[in-house]
């Protein structure tokens, strides 16, 4: 990267630096690592990055997109404030949405405020609120939504074709939520083709992070592929894979594990989509990633930069993609929730600011800034606004967004980006050697790897080897922390009453017919894979006939297999 002369000068300078260091700090050694245990030097110099080909760093908007996927970044396209905010009933969520919209939860250029829908705990495993297993969890962590009627409460009257809608935290039932959305859109007369948004549709979170049962490996892959197939034809602007790396970081995974596992998941889904006859140049551009930004400031930035570069290389070299959009990885960041502490909660607002700043310096497309009350309740209004303001202060006051990839060219940043890239590629190749993502996931290898990383970190906190302010250092006796947000137990009862009423008033013969049709189609898709037909139209028909999330999910669970990993 540098001229021979520049390296000679740098080496000379380093020699005198070393001498001086030895003189001044006789016998003193400092051994730093990143949060992922990458050993660090105390300073980086040109020779640390001399072996990197300058083209690997390049320019924003140019392959391999280390510095960003677009030639102009926040100067043209603002960072989307993609907050999560739902709880209780759909109307509670709608009210919170309107409030945050008024306070400047802004979307992409020319778009309305984005609408993030992360369903409640029962919803993310495809259970209706009246299911006995859902008892106690209805409306927690998100709104209870399971019928087309719930979608009406969430969305009626909004200009949906100018709103970015995202279903967050949903693994397997992604396709069912999409069917309910499509049925709702058809009812409102909004063309599917015009819709912007995305859905996780990845099979990582439920297994590695939530510890919930999930669709059997191969079955999950088939169902996810069916959604990509449908959207490639009917919803060209919809994101069909927002791969959930966040769940890996939150479970204690390292930076390399987070990126390697999501890319391996995308590789597996790409192969399956090719098998059903889809063209990667058409569907890969609709893939994206949801990563976390956590404790280690520079490592997070390096991770984001490395993720873009690895993605570009893999889809160019291994899948032969020619469409530049297939090589441009768009990233959404949710700032780390697990890094938020229960002790001294206001400290979390400062952590969230650092995490948000690392996401912005990494040049991502959208950020969800986690609220300071993350460790003890769902977000209260005050915390939500502070999260929004964090982003607004960085984006609109600090002048930081005036320059794209401001850390590009830093010896440390480029070295660390390459280091994370190298470790990530090793892991991706290891997964390939072991038979691919679905296999490694099914045997529990993947979860075991993350568990080990978490245990190491947690023990280092308990032993005080690593610092967690307010938890293992600078501890103060605290008063009781009042919760500013609480769930009304009435909401669960209301959700149950509501779905019972919905089921009583619909044409149940029609529901039975549509569900039986869905069962036949599901069986055929599963058994005659990859040419057994199309799953999504049968799901949309059932949704239009007023079948519920739980009813449709139950059929998929039975036909494609439903279990815990171990």
């Amino acid at each position: 990267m540098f001229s021979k002369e520049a390296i000679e000068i740098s080496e000379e300078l380093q020699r005198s630096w070393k001498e001086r260091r030895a003189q001044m700090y006789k016998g003193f050694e400092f051994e730093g690592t990143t949060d992922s245990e990458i050993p660090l030097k105390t300073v980086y110099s040109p020779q640390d990055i001399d072996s990197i080909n300058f083209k690997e760093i390049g320019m924003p908007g140019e392959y391999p997109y280390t510095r960003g996927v677009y030639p102009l970044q926040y100067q043209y396209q603002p960072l989307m404030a993609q907050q999560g905010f739902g709880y209780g009933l759909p109307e509670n969520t709608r009210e919170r949405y309107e409030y945050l919209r008024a306070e400047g939860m802004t979307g992409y250029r020319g778009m309305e405020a984005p609408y993030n829908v992360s369903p409640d705990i029962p919803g993310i495993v495809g259970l209706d609120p009246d299911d006995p297993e859902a008892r106690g969890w209805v409306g927690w962590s998100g709104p209870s939504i399971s019928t087309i009627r719930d979608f009406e409460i969430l969305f009626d009257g909004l200009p949906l074709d100018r709103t970015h809608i995202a279903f967050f935290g949903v693994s397997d039932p992604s396709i069912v939520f999409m069917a309910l959305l499509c049925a709702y859109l058809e009812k409102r007369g909004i063309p599917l083709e015009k819709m912007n948004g995305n859905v996780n549709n990845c099979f990582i979170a439920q297994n590695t992070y939530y510890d919930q049962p999930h669709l059997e490996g191969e079955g999950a892959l088939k169902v996810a592929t069916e959604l990509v197939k449908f959207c490639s034809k009917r919803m060209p602007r919809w994101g069909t894979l927002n791969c959930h790396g966040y769940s890996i970081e939150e479970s204690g995974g390292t930076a390399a594990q987070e990126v390697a596992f999501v890319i391996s998941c995308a590789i597996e889904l790409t192969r399956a989509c090719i098998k059903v006859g889809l063209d990667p140049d058409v569907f890969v551009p609709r893939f994206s990633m949801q990563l976390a930004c956590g404790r280690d400031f520079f490592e997070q930035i390096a991770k984001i930069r490395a993720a873009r570069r690895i993605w570009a290389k893999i889809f160019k070299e291994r899948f032969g993609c020619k469409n530049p959009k297939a090589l441009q990885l768009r990233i959404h960041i949710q700032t780390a929730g697990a890094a938020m502490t229960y002790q001294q909660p206001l400290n979390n607002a400062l952590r969230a600011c650092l995490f948000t700043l690392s996401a912005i310096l990494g040049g991502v497309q959208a950020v969800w800034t986690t609220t300071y009350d993350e460790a003890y309740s769902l977000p209260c209004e005050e915390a939500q606004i502070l999260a929004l303001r964090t982003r607004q202060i960085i984006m609109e006051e600090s002048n930081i967004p005036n320059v794209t990839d401001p850390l590009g060219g830093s010896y440390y940043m480029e070295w660390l980006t390459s280091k994370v890239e190298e470790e990530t590629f090793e892991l991706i190749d290891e997964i390939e050697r072991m038979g691919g993502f679905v296999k490694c996931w099914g045997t529990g290898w993947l979860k075991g790897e993350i568990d080990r990383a978490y245990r190491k970190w947690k023990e280092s906190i308990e032993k005080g080897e690593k610092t967690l302010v307010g938890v293992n250092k600078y501890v103060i006796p605290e008063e009781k922390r009042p919760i500013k947000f609480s769930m009304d137990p009435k909401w669960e009862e209301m959700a149950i009453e509501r779905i019972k009423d919905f089921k009583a008033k619909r044409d149940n013969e029609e529901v039975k017919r549509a569900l039986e049709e869905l069962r036949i189609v599901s069986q055929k898709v599963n058994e005659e894979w990859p040419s057994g037909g199309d799953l999504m139209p049968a799901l949309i028909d059932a949704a239009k006939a007023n079948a519920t999330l739980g009813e449709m999910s139950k059929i998929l669970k039975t036909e494609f297999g439903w279990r815990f990993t171990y």
Partner: protein
Amino acid sequence: MPIKCLITKSQIDAHDKGARFIATALKEAGMEVVYTRFATPDEIVETALQEDVDVIGISLLCGGYTYTISRVMELLKEKKMDALLMVGGQIPDDEGERILEMGIDRIFSQGATAAEVIDYITSKVPKKEPAPGA
């Protein structure tokens, strides 16, 4: 005879690393640990009875605590079972008193260490004599 603990979480309650971390730590401290995921609170009591445990630890992160705890207490009373009852996870401070009144012996919320949990159990559960013939 080692102290026997049931560490359990709901099948659908999202997140598990806390419960698994504690389960492993208790095992390493020489206790016998049964780790399960329950579909309904009834299964907690059923398992506790079958396994004849000394300690029941329920991990609750994403809500669900009011219903789960009250149902477990109801069933334990009904079955006349006696065990040390702990809950862990994300339980708001404001709810603490109410939960203790429901009959839970101890709440371990965020920041609690494995050592605290182990100390608490060993201080509360009397050393057991080997069963006759065991």
